[in-house]
């Protein structure tokens, strides 16, 4: 030993490293120092305004008062394609989170969701759900893997202010695709803004194209009922939907200049007053006001025009689920939370009123039109319970809420949903960036590609 001192210093260095790395290891200990069950729950996307945090803090307090043995930890969460699978594998998802209908089937087939059949039975909800919606959370084994929480239908959102500037009547929004085209041109001619816009990237292009195909009476996929499906993208309705985009962009010049929008950015553009009309889910009002600072006076919503011989309104929604890796205690706490936070307000008057009151006091949107996950009667009733707290401009949403019940809801394609959407993104982008795009050839090609994906 020439230099014991040096060895000692080095030893300390090693110790320091090991300690630092040990600190990196996941601290998945259940239960906090106070002996409560810690429950990590999804809240809202990052970037929400302070009021959203206030509302959640108030609700957290209410819940913990009723359940003194549970400690709720809110986690910012947004369902995002690219990160979800990695978070799932890495174990960094909250214990309770929400996923879209489109992905629930695949997740439960992969064994990535917690079985909650007993909990739903115990709460007595099994018979109360809308059966079409319940099907989306039922596995091949007949078990239930989540609580359907809310549903939306496709809607046409429009800027009332731009309508007025263009000499259009904001209380009589367009009712056919041709009228939408005329209105879009009028808006662009009068204001120079985009009369109409549509999402085109990150799978939202495929999502909206599918939605408009259904609205024109076509379908992009036929389900064989055994986990396989036939691609039917190459149909007249999809072709008409693409031709519509082409005409607005290249013939009328009313589409606007941005062809690289997705769910977030199109909302941002609309909230900033740069878009006359666009289609998206009926549930976005909350996000427009909360996350994008829209002035509610400009907002108008109506149904998506239906035409053709079997048209429908594409619907979707999300499901409150739990990670399959949590232990029994946490699962029990999770069921309590889902029931309290998501479900009770749909069926219990006191809970509905409390929820509406809390949200209203924090300046959050109350009363955004949704589709019922239970029954329509119950939904209508719940809207009456909270009538005093509804703070969204209901009259500006009337064109939607009065007509939506006459439309047939259609679910999103079930097999390889997002992958096919991704293929369709490219088709939408080509039509919007290439004036001479051959729509027939594009559809024939994407049909082949989609079928190959389905057959994998």
């Amino acid at each position, binding site marked *: 030993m020439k230099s014991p001192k040096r060895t000692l210093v080095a030893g300390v260095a090693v110790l320091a490293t090991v300690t630092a790395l040990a600190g990196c290891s996941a601290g998945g200990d259940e239960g906090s120092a106070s002996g409560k069950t810690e429950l990590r729950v999804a809240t809202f996307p990052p970037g929400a305004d302070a009021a959203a945090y206030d509302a959640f803090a108030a609700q957290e307090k209410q819940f913990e008062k009723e359940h003194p043995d549970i400690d709720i930890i809110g986690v910012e969460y947004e369902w995002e*394609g*690219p990160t*979800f699978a*990695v978070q799932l594998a890495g174990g960094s998802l909250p214990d309770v989170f929400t996923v879209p209908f489109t992905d629930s089937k695949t997740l439960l087939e992969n064994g*990535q969701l917690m079985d909650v059949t007993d909990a739903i039975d115990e709460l007595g909800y099994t018979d109360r759900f809308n059966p079409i919606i319940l099907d989306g959370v039922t596995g091949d084994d007949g078990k239930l893997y989540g609580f359907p929480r809310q549903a939306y239908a496709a809607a046409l959102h429009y800027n009332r202010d731009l309508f007025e500037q263009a000499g259009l009547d904001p209380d009589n929004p367009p009712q056919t695709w041709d009228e939408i085209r005329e209105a879009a041109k009028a808006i662009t001619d009068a204001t120079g803004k985009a009369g109409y816009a549509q999402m085109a990237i990150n799978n939202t292009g495929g999502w909206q194209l599918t939605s408009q195909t259904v609205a024109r009476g076509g379908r992009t996929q036929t389900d064989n009922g055994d986990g396989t499906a036939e691609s039917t993208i190459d149909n007249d309705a999809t072709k008409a939907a693409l031709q519509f985009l082409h005409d607005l962009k290249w013939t009328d010049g009313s589409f606007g*200049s941005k062809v690289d929008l997705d769910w977030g950015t199109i909302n941002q553009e609309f909230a900033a007053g740069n878009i006359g009309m666009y289609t998206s889910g009926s549930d976005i009002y909350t996000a427009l006001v909360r996350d994008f600072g829209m002035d509610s006076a400009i907002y108008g919503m109506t149904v998506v025009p239906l035409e053709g011989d079997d048209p429908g309104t594409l619907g979707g929604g999300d499901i409150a689920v739990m990670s399959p890796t949590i232990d029994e205690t946490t699962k029990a706490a999770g069921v309590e939370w889902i029931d309290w936070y998501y479900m009770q307000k749909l069926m219990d008057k006191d809970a509905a009123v409390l929820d509406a009151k809390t949200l209203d006091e924090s300046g959050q949107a109350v009363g955004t039109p949704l589709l019922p996950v239970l029954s329509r009667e119950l939904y209508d009733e719940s809207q009456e319970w909270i009538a005093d707290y509804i703070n969204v401009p209901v009259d500006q949403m009337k064109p939607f809420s009065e007509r939506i019940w006459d439309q047939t809801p259609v679910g999103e394609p079930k097999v390889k949903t*997002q992958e096919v959407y991704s293929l369709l993104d490219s088709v939408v982008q080509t039509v919007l960036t290439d004036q001479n795009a051959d729509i027939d050839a594009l559809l024939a090609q994407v049909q082949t590609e989609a079928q190959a994906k389905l057959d994998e």
Partner: protein
Amino acid sequence: MTMTLSEQRAAVEDSPPPAARRPRRRSPLTWYRGGGLANLVFVLPMLFVFVFFSWSPIVQSVIMSLQKTNLIVAEWVGFDNYLAVIGDPELGRAVINTLWFAVLALLFGFPLPLLIAVLMSEVRRGKGLYSALAYLPVVIPPVVAVLLWKFFYSADPSGVFNTVLGWVGIPPQPWIQDAVQAMPSLVLEATWAGAGGSIIIYLAALLGVPPELYDAAEVDGAGIWKKVWHVTLPQLRGILFIMLILQVIATAQVFLEPFLFTGGGPAGATKTVLLYIYDKAFRNSLGGDYGEATAVSVLLAIVLAVLSWLYFKLTDRWSTT
């Protein structure tokens, strides 16, 4: 380290005779007495971090490229992933896009910093100011720079660049909203962002050109362009070549610009190899094809390793300049 001394001796005798001037193998005892243990202990943390954060993921991804996995369950599929991606026309397109980026980056990005550096080396006063100005874009965080340029590239007639074009009577351009214009737009931003670093290197290299060469050229009656052509460029030949290889290696890994500007669009016109890998792995919400994604990564790594080897060979040869 469980060899007995006799075994060691045997091993030494079996091994081929040591080359000339190679030091004799030290026994563990002398290694230990020479403070070898302390050295090893000092290296350990570093080694640990490297193995843990750098080498193990590399090995992991090679393993993953032979599997079909969703990160939770994995099954071995041999070279299927490689065959699948090599047969994927989309990868071919991504390679062509990447090469197109590289070519454009050479056209815009290679001569420009050199030109600026030569001009800057000619100025007498305020050299520091010019250097600072040239280097400024490098200091701006890349994501901020891209978002800023995205705003400049607004396709509205009221967009920043379109307004400037409007002053000289050019109609508004779609920039990144168009399949043909998107890639050059990306390269323009990347050049702006990266030129500063190259300029500084060229400036340093220019200082190494002996002034008497210029004097001699002047005596022969050469003007500034002749001087640049006959003196500066030949003197910089080595560094130019090194910069070229480095740039090719860098452009092969282009990700940030297409990812942030266009997400690979419009209609796949700016989808580069790295973005292709990203999409393969993360595009699909329920776990992408990690096996195929890592297979492309491994292939790309091999190509880059060859380029890097070339770079080292050449830098050895040019190291005299």
